[in-house]
């Protein structure tokens, strides 16, 4: 009778499995430490970004009141009408009010002028947060003293000290102090128009509030305790909208701001996640080799009575423990790294970020560490299931026993996890699928290139080459070679960095000024019609050209296709975009298209034929948002006068060009007599001429606003540099992870290299020859990985240029001249650095070491 006892399960429990995992792991700690390092950086990158984003979001929410300075604001770009005033009265009246506009400021005694944002404030604004000044008392008494607070950077740049004077329009005021921060002014854009705060009572006296000026009216309120701002906003905003005013609560504003930064954070997180993925691929490859080395031990364990499940679990626990330790180490590193971000991003952050530790992020980091390492190690780990105990008696081939299904399931699990992670970040399943597809395509392309290269070498093996280059090529095919994983690691890292470089190029190219052409670099706004000749004369006196003299007429949409705006606004089914109904359009009239415009539909009309509605041309985005086609009627309210028009043509406008573009263009012969102002443009050759022209213009025409586009460009470049620095920082994690994967891969195949070099040396090869063989091997790997990464980035940048930025992409040579050789040298350095000990030792020493 068979002994049924033998059917009982093994008695060793979880405790023993854990003990075995630790025992075995202790002896393999060096190898396992490298696997762990592969994920530490990826986790650190994800955790640092995630934690910083959370901190930023929380800080914005916490500081929302001091960001706005009040509980809510009612604002408008025109003087509020009766209805808005009565609403404000019913709310108890504003606690403070402000009129703001951009203007040129002069500094008597100094030969400079500067574009500034004038904020005329009345009342005890801000009610939350504070106006920070130097001296601090200036913020408290500038109102009584009738003085101005001037942006601290401008004071420093122009050498202005408290007590000096500032001239705005017709008013000259003493500067009470340097303005360091004020609610409602973002430091990001203040370098174009730095803020100047003056008492509200002086605004009128400046003489700058006139027709055509772009004036902002802000009314600040503090709310009754317990007021539900969300409901309040929902109730009041539509009414205010209809009266060309707007309500912003501190909550909605901070949420909007938070979302903007959150999106950027999410993008960075995906970049960081790619570093983590790269590390995980490194783990998968290393575990594959690791398990191969463990096959005999597993067979022995099975011989001694361990079940399939037990031997599988021992190694699974081991990997999960590595993931746990890696997750903890990565999380700690990430939490440390995020302390750097506020320093790096100082100028582009809206609030002072106080770093705190978020337990959700710590949990995320550790969980990611365990999940990712287990998931990616699962397929190679499954090899333990197929090890026969017979392996103790003779070598067996276990690979063939695996089923394709298990591999497919593991792969599906991995992609599902990547998708879920992306979905968690992006909250959009379409983008998440694109992200997964992008990953699959990039990785497959790189893997394809590596495979193709290997096949090509096999097929066209250069038999005529000398021994050293031939041997180094052969090394790429050695059993358990790491060619594929190395090409992937090097390729993805290079791909990320060079794509980011090209993208920055694309963005800058789009914003840059065309130096060759006669494109203007100085724009003069708010030129009154009666000033245009004198202004043009002043420009010409400096021997500068007047490139354009563009008339601007402000108007609002009154009706679309015969339906009044008020009716469309109330129609909840209307597809018309809200901004069309509210916006004060600045339109122009001319007889021809300009270089940034292409006619898409209809016919261009140069001058008004004089009968019927006026034929106008609209931009394609206006047509889409207003739901109008060629032939549709649109009527405008031109400062109280109704004007009926018909859409005669639709234009595609390149808004990214640094020039004045318009949604609505009238033919000549209609608006010439309407109230209007002018925009003049010129091109100044250098900063000195620019300063001189600005001075003489401001002296004679204090109402002008002058924008030096070169300054704008410098700012854009500064912002892009900051952002790209951060993106590069994240991509750097990928490169670092790539390096660790590289070191891991080199170490994993170390024994094979030892065996080979010992054999070669026994046969009489010199150290120098062995060194050359290895150097060439890493050179091939470096070239293959880095070149495929850069080529892949060329394709992706081309696609980005075509689909996202809608501009043609001309690659720069920098990635080829700097990145390519840099990465190749790095690969060679790491490869040789890790093999040097082997090469330099005498064969016997190496053999002994190998034995042990």
């Amino acid at each position, binding site marked *: 009778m068979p*002994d049924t006892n033998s059917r009982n399960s093994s*008695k060793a429990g979880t405790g023993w499995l854990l003990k075995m995992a630790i*025992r075995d792991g202790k*002896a393999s700690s060096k190898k396992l430490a490298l696997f762990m390092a592969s994920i530490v950086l990826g986790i650190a990158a994800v955790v640092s970004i995630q934690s910083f984003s959370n901190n930023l979001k929380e800080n914005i929410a916490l500081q929302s009141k001091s960001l706005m300075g009040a509980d809510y604001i009612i604002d408008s770009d025109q003087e509020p009408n009766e209805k808005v005033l009565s609403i404000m009265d019913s709310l108890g009246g504003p606690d403070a009010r402000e009129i703001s506009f951009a203007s040129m400021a002069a500094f008597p005694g100094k030969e400079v002028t500067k574009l500034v944002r004038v904020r005329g404030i009345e009342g005890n604004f801000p009610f939350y947060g504070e106006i920070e000044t130097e001296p601090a008392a200036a913020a408290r008494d500038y109102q009584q003293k009738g003085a101005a607070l001037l942006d601290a950077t401008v004071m420093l740049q122009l050498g202005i000290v408290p007590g000096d004077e500032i001239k705005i329009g017709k008013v000259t005021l003493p500067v009470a102090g340097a303005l360091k921060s004020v609610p409602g002014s973002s430091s990001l854009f203040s370098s174009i128009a730095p803020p100047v705060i003056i008492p509200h009572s002086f605004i009128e006296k400046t003489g700058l509030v006139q027709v055509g000026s772009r004036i902002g009216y802000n009314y600040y309120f503090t709310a009754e305790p317990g007021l539900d701002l969300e409901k309040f906003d929902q109730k009041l905003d539509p009414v205010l909208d209809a009266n060309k005013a707007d309500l912003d609560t501190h909550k909605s504003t901070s949420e909007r701001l938070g979302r903007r930064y959150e999106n950027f954070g999410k993008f960075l997180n995906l970049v960081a996640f790619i570093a983590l993925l790269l590390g995980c691929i490194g783990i998968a490859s290393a575990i594959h080799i690791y398990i191969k080395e463990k096959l005999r*031990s597993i067979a*022995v364990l099975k*011989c*001694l*009575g361990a079940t399939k499940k037990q031997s599988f679990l021992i190694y699974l626990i081991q990997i999960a423990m590595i993931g746990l330790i890696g997750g903890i180490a990565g999380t700690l590193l990430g939490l440390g790294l995020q302390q750097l971000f506020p320093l790096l991003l100082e100028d582009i952050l809206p609030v002072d970020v106080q770093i705190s530790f978020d337990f959700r992020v710590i949990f995320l980091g550790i969980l990611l560490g365990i999940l990712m390492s287990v998931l990616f190690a699962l397929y190679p780990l499954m090899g333990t299931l197929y090890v026969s105990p*017979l392996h103790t008696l003779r070598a067996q081939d276990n690979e063939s026993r695996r089923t394709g299904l298990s591999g497919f399931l593991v792969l599906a699990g991995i992609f599902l996890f990547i998708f879920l992670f992306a979905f968690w970040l992006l909250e959009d399943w379409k983008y998440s699928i694109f992200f997964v597809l992008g990953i699959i395509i990039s990785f497959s392309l790189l893997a394809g290139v590596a495979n193709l290269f290997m096949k090509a070498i096999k097929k066209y093996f250069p038999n005529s080459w000398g021994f050293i280059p031939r041997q180094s090529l052969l090394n790429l095919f050695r059993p358990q070679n790491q060619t594929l994983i190395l090409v992937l690691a090097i390729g993805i890292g290079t791909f990320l960095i060079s794509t980011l470089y090209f993208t920055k190029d694309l963005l800058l190219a789009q914003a840059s000024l065309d130096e060759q052409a006669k494109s203007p670099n100085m724009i003069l706004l708010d030129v009154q019609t009666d000033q245009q000749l004198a202004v043009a004369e002043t420009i010409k006196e400096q021997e500068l050209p007047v490139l354009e003299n563009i008339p601007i007429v402000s108007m609002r949409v009154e009706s679309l296709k015969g339906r009044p705006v008020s009716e469309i606004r109330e129609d909840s089914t209307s597809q018309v975009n809200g901004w069309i109904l509210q916006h004060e359009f600045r339109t122009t009239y001319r007889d021809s298209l300009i270089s940034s415009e292409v006619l898409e539909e209809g016919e261009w009309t140069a001058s008004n034929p004089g009968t019927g509605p006026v034929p106008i041309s609209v931009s394609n985005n206006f047509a889409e948002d207003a739901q109008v086609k060629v032939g549709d009627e649109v009527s405008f309210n031109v400062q109280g006068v109704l004007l009926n028009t018909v859409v005669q043509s639709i234009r595609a406008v390149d808004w990214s060009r640094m020039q004045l573009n318009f949604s609505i263009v009238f033919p000549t012969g209609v608006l010439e007599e309407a109230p209007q102002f002018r925009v003049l443009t010129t091109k100044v050759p250098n900063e000195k001429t620019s300063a001189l022209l600005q001075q003489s213009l401001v002296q004679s025409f204090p109402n002008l606003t002058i924008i030096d586009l070169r300054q704008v460009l410098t700012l854009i470049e500064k912002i892009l540099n900051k952002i790209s620095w951060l993106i590069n920082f994240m991509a750097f994690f990928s490169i670092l992870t790539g390096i660790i994967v590289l070191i891991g891969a080199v170490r994993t195949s170390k024994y094979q290299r030892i065996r080979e070099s010992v054999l070669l040396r026994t046969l009489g090869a010199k150290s120098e020859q062995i060194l050359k063989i290895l150097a060439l091997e890493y050179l091939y790997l470096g070239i293959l990985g880095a070149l495929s990464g850069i080529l892949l980035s060329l394709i992706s940048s081309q696609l980005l240029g075509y689909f996202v930025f809608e501009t043609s992409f001309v690659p720069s040579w920098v990635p080829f001249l700097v990145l390519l050789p840099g990465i190749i040298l790095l690969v060679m350095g790491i490869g040789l650095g890790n093999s040097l000990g082997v090469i330099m030792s005498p064969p016997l020493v190496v053999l002994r070491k190998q034995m042990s």
Partner: protein
Amino acid sequence: MAKILSVQNLKKSYHSGSKELTVLEDISFDIQERETFAIVGPSGSGKTTLLGLCAGLDQPDSGSIELCGTLINGLNEDQRAILRNKKVGFVFQDFQLIPTLTALENVSVPLELRGDKNAVKEAKVLLEKVGLGDRIHHYPSQLSGGEQQRVALARAFSNRPEILFADEPTGNLDEETGKKVVELLIELNEESGTTLVIVTHDMELARKTQRILRLKGGKVMETLNV
């Protein structure tokens, strides 16, 4: 005495490309409890395959194997593993110690697998018995070949097996060390009253057993009483 191993009409073949290679054919024999038994034959005669089948490391194509009262043909891999843990011991030509475990850990694994709470204590006693009391915390790579095989012997006897299979136990050792290991093996075997099955091509070692089965070309040539 009762039969501990009964092999009837055993056949085993492997596929080599499109060809079928018969390694063992029509093998039948019985081994009694406490008996010592040697399987001898030239290289390629099927000795190791036979040992693997008898110990339940592999499945025969046909025929039956009853080991310690259990018909092992019908058991799956895990059931056979548990049977091995309870009733079978092994000694291999190349020792097959787990390189990442110390001598003590290697010996205690079979006991731990059974859930024996005194595993470490018992393993220490065994290691002292084979003369390695002072090297219990050494890893296999820190031991000589003879020492490794002594650890393997301690491990083989640690779970007090009813039957012990030894595959060329002296094959990787020099003559002198080999002799010492054989002496130790026989001593431990007598002490524990375990059935011993040795696969060897060393006739001197085979003659130390009670019965010899001679294989050639996968078939039993003769069975000799020593």
